[in-house]
């Protein structure tokens, strides 16, 4: 496509078709938007949560509420167990061979699947996508991509963006292979942003989690610099 040329109808249609793909939003923007959305949800839940004043309620009422809660919990646990049991029997009914490939394993529940990811839909024709567990290579690439972005934001002294990306990494890969680097980057970003107290707190957690880290001396120095 050279400037000056008149396009045919087919070329115009091709440009429109090519340009109509949904592109991935920049990682830093994604991290910021998700953090804001999570904040809004948390605020809405805080506002909705009823505040019980147990001290003023008569003891018998408190007892009744507690009993009701226990009964409800028991029902819920029973229901969940029945569901898990029925799923397990269904799965066994259809699969009798002793070998399962990794891709056929059942999807773990979100609480257990720290590295589970919802893949972003790239094709506009398929509006829905499903949970799938990333392969080690994919998850490492995703970790690396996030932290590289965070590092580049840190290098540009955009500390809040670096923290947003590191936070996103912590949410998606709490025990990822680059957790040590992420926490180190958080300390340095907090120190860079002048948030000395938080930097010290994160540093203490870092020292506890990675006591033999080679990054520790430099992080301590960064935190000290932020305090001065």
């Amino acid at each position, binding site marked *: 496509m050279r400037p000056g040329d008149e396009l045919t109808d087919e070329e115009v249609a091709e440009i429109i078709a090519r340009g109509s793909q949904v592109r991935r*939003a920049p990682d830093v923007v994604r991290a910021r938007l998700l953090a804001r959305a999570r904040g*809004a949800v948390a605020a809405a839940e805080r506002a909705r949560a009823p505040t019980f004043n147990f001290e003023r309620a008569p003891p018998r009422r408190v007892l009744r509420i507690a009993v009701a809660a226990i009964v409800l919990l028991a029902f819920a646990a029973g229901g969940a167990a029945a569901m898990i049991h029925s799923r397990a029997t269904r799965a066994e009914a259809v699969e009798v061979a002793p070998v399962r490939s990794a891709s*056929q394993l059942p999807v773990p529940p979100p609480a257990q699947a720290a590295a589970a990811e919802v893949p972003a839909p790239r094709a506009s024709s398929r509006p829905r996508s499903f949970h799938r567990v990333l392969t080690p290579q994919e998850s490492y690439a995703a970790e690396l991509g996030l932290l590289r972005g965070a590092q580049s934001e840190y290098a540009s002294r955009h500390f809040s963006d670096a923290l947003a990306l590191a936070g996103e990494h912590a949410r998606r890969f709490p025990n990822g292979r680059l957790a040590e680097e992420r926490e180190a980057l958080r300390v340095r970003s907090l120190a860079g942003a002048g948030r000395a107290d938080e930097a010290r707190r994160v540093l203490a957690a870092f020292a506890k989690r990675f006591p033999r880290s080679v990054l520790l001396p430099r992080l301590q120095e960064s935190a000290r610099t932020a305090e001065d």
Partner: protein
Amino acid sequence: MGYLRQVRSSAPAPLLETSCLGVYERELDYIYETLQRLGARSPEIEDLAQEVFLVLHRNWAELDISRPFRPYLFAVAFRVVCAHRRRKRREVPYEHLDPEDLTVGPEESLQSKQSARVLMAALDTVPLQRRAVVVMHDLDGVAIVDVAARLSLTRFGAYARLRKARKELASAVRRISREGVRR
């Protein structure tokens, strides 16, 4: 000793993402792209995406998530952009043709990068009401009946807007390709 034989098991039942935040995260790229197509740019686009999320969160209990979700998201994004424009009370100025935010990954070819820039610049020249119809139908592939329903138009009105918007878009693509995207 026998041997282990690998057989194809039936596909695991897909788990539909049912939390509001999960759906938002999954559709974030689409929301971001749609807002850009509707003319939102860097300073305001994140606020507008957050507004889309707030609408989604507010109406989450009543939404039927078994139906295609993107037409709904598009309609929300469209209304959010319209409201934002009314608040600003001015048209998006022409200098927004500057595609500074049209980030494309390195894996994308130069051709599709260039096409995205040209298309985005061309879309900016189509008035918003018509642009919404052409984006929804021609780019997102939504049937015109659903476009009309989502954007509160009659079917005839949707067709009329689509026809005009296609002409405007094609001529803008030609012009911008001829002159090159402004930097």
